[in-house]
């Protein structure tokens, strides 16, 4: 039995033994008759009342009030649990599809923005005394968006991730890859084959990233030059 320390015991020391006896009876360790053997309550009104109150509590607790669950509660709970499980499954699929779409977008951006297949300029061979060769002007490689998207779609199909296991993933994958690989109508097919054939606005978005800062600065200077310092009246 856990005894309180003398400092936090709310009872006078003389009453502690009676309180311990009451607790043993209320714990079910001792019979209620053992309360009669305690002499202390005869001379202590507080403990006498405690013992009387304990007997009352025991008599009431011996006949517990039945608490019945309302009819139909189990059915309502089972329905709520099933609905909650379905909602959680939906949330998981949406989160998965969102992650997949984000990954696909990043992969697509990386695919389209990768540098051309031109060889990297070699470092000058100083030890051999060979003068550094002037790097050849990068050749404009025609960008074929249809081909790129088709390759990306195929790569997505061949991905080793077990995305086909998720219930909605095959649909998401099919939608994504069909959109990427769908053949364009001849009327929609662009006529040009190089970036130079595209309008300025479209070319600016498709050119390789190299030199972007210079171009941005040049355009800033151009735009600043075009602004009239005088406010319009």
């Amino acid at each position: 039995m856990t005894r309180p320390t003398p400092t936090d015991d709310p009872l006078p020391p003389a009453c502690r033994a009676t309180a311990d006896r009451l607790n043993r009876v209320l714990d079910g360790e001792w019979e209620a008759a053992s309360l009669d053997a305690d002499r202390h309550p005869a001379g202590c009104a507080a403990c006498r009342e405690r013992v009387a109150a304990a007997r009352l509590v025991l008599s009431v607790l011996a006949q517990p009030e039945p608490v019945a669950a309302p009819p139909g509660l189990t059915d309502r709970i089972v329905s709520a649990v099933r609905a909650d499980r379905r909602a959680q499954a939906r949330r998981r699929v949406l989160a998965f599809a969102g992650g997949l779409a984000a990954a696909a977008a990043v992969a697509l951006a990386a695919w389209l923005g990768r540098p051309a297949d031109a060889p990297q300029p070699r470092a000058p061979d100083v030890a051999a005394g060979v003068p550094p060769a002037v790097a050849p002007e990068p050749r404009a490689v025609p960008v074929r968006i249809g081909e790129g998207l088709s390759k990306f779609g195929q790569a997505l199909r061949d991905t080793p991730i077990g995305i086909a296991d998720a219930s909605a993933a095959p649909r998401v994958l099919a939608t994504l890859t069909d959109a990427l690989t769908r053949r364009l109508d001849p009327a929609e097919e662009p006529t040009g084959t190089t970036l130079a054939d595209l309008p300025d606005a479209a070319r600016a978005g498709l050119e390789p990233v190299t030199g972007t800062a210079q171009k941005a600065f040049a355009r800033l200077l151009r735009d600043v030059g075009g602004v009239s310092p005088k406010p319009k009246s």
Partner: protein
Amino acid sequence: MTADAALVRRCLAGDPAACRELVGRFTPDVFAVCRRLLADAHDAEDVTQEVFLRVFRSLGRWDDSRPLRPWVVGIAVNRCRTWVGRRARRPELADYLHETPDRRPADDSAELRAGIRDAVDALRAEYREVFVLFHEHGHGYDEIAAAVGRPVGTVKTWLHRARLELLNALRARGLVPEESAEVPPSGGDRP
């Protein structure tokens, strides 16, 4: 594998019959604890439903080396605590809404029972929880310790203090029979 563990495994596998069995097995216990700790049948119904949603959401984290009942009851006790805190922050109802039909007890035993219930309700939350679980729902010290997440020694201390406070409250409310309170010759803690 214990029966509890087998049932939980079937629930995790998505077996609807197992789900219903688990709910059916624990609903009476959970509802009774909620009803007693919240003192309101409608609140108890709402919280019982919340308890099972949480049980099924975290079923995969249940430690199958421990019994399931104290774990479920522990979730119920926690939800009741949260609900009581939330209810305390709600604005008070208008006075006329507090008017309820006369619920005065019909006889002495009912009055006594109501007096004990009121005295238990007046105990601080953790004392009330362990008292209700031990005396009204028959949980052992180990189960209560698992349910409230405290050591057995702490649970015993809380329960012993709860009893002492309860007995003193019954004395203060005059519910102890007059004939048992004789004039003391000396001693005791009465002022």
